[in-house]
């Protein structure tokens, strides 16, 4: 019996480890541009993502200050005036991929992705579609959803209101590898 227990413990540990896929260099992009004005968009290339292939549980986080803008001054104002990055340095997502079955991902497939996005201490429920493909030993997850500044109590002063879109498009592109 002892042998059996040992074997069980061992196998659970092994299987627990092999179910985790992750990345530290995920790309998260947002666009809040309004046509005819200076583009308001930035890319974060150091998003950390973790996915449990057995359950479809997914979590992601990124540092707001790591969003790179084309114009340095815009990046400074984004952090200082809109996102309060000193006070709220991270954005965190915690969610589930519905009916995720790891054996199916050999082909490109769309799944319902839902969860909670926490930004500036405010939580918002996100429901969207994620495309998941297996490329060699990498899982490629991409998705797109929209948010609005007021969802997270981001105040936009009158003088720039025309230059910042009311709907902000967020695009995700994550290449996950197995965590060993």
């Amino acid at each position, binding site marked *: 019996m002892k042998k*059996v227990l040992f*074997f*069980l413990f061992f*196998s*659970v540990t092994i*299987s*627990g480890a*092999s*179910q*985790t896929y*992750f990345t*530290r260099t995920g790309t998260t992009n947002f666009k809040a541009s309004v046509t005819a004005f200076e583009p308001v968009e930035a890319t974060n290339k*150091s998003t*950390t*993502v*973790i996915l*449990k292939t*057995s*359950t479809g*549980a997914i*979590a*992601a*986080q990124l*540092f707001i*200050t*790591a969003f790179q803008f084309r*114009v*340095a*001054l815009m990046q*400074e*104002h984004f*952090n*200082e*005036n809109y996102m309060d*990055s*000193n*006070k709220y*340095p991270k954005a*965190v997502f*915690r969610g589930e991929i519905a009916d995720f079955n*790891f*054996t199916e991902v050999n082909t490109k497939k769309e799944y319902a992705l839902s969860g909670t996005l926490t930004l500036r201490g405010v939580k918002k429920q996100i429901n969207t579609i994620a495309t998941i493909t297996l490329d060699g030993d990498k899982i490629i997850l991409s998705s797109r959803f929209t948010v609005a500044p007021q969802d997270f109590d981001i105040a936009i*002063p009158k*003088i*720039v209101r025309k230059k910042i879109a009311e709907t902000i498009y967020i695009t995700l592109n994550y290449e996950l590898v197995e*965590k060993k």
Partner: protein
Amino acid sequence: MYYSKVKNRNRNYFLLICALLSVVSLKAQDDLMEELNDISKAETRFELPAFKAMKIGNLQSTKIAAKGDLYLYVSHRFGSVKDGFETFFGLDNANTNIQLVYSFWDGIQLSASRESLNQTYASAIKIRLAKQSTSFPLNIAFYGTANVNAALEKDRMPDLQFGDRMSYAAQFLISKRISEKFSFLLAPSYVRQNLQDLNEVAAANHNQLLMGFGGRMKVSKRVSINMDYAYNFNRNTHSIYNNPLTIGMDLETGGHVFQLLFTNAQSTNEPGFLSNAEGDWSEGIIFLGFNVVRVF
């Protein structure tokens, strides 16, 4: 693959594993966030800039134009507010400085300016040496400037050489954003004045050492109260000049920063205000001034 392995095992074991896994996965709700934190890189993250503009008031801040950014600085220093209605509180006697700031390389900014006081042409360089981050506590920059006084007339001073028109300043700017709202700056400075009027400075002191202090306190996201001061170690007690003290505010509106200030120095150039601040706060001889900063 995990699944194919399981199939080969005894069915009872499989059920047991499933039971165990379900316990594990219940716990996994919170563990997932912990695991995420564990794999997150301990990356160096830079602190947001300590100051909004390249100047605190008169003193240079550690801010440096980003590569490719062009800034236009227009500064005015009016006459003494003590003049009252005679000059409309100094508004009739304005010193105007127009300056262009550009960065060709990341962390290095160059500037050129012309000021009406003493018809001064100035060029300056500011170089970033360190940036405050999770792994280093301070912003450090070097600032150097050379000024040409074009107002000196050879007719009145026959022995005048070109070198006599020159004055220089070199500073180390060391700042720290201590909290989200409060930033502090120290500026050990050296000033070289090639020409001095002994009637004004009492005794010649061509080489001067100073310590500059500056700070800003944000009162809202886009407004801050600023102050800077410099103590001159080499000034003769009989000199007519004083140490410069500037109190002002920043008002940021996207692409502009308006800096409104009161100071006892007329010049906006470092050798000018560090050596030759002609006003005196204790006597009420102070000047209203502003800097308008526009980025292109």
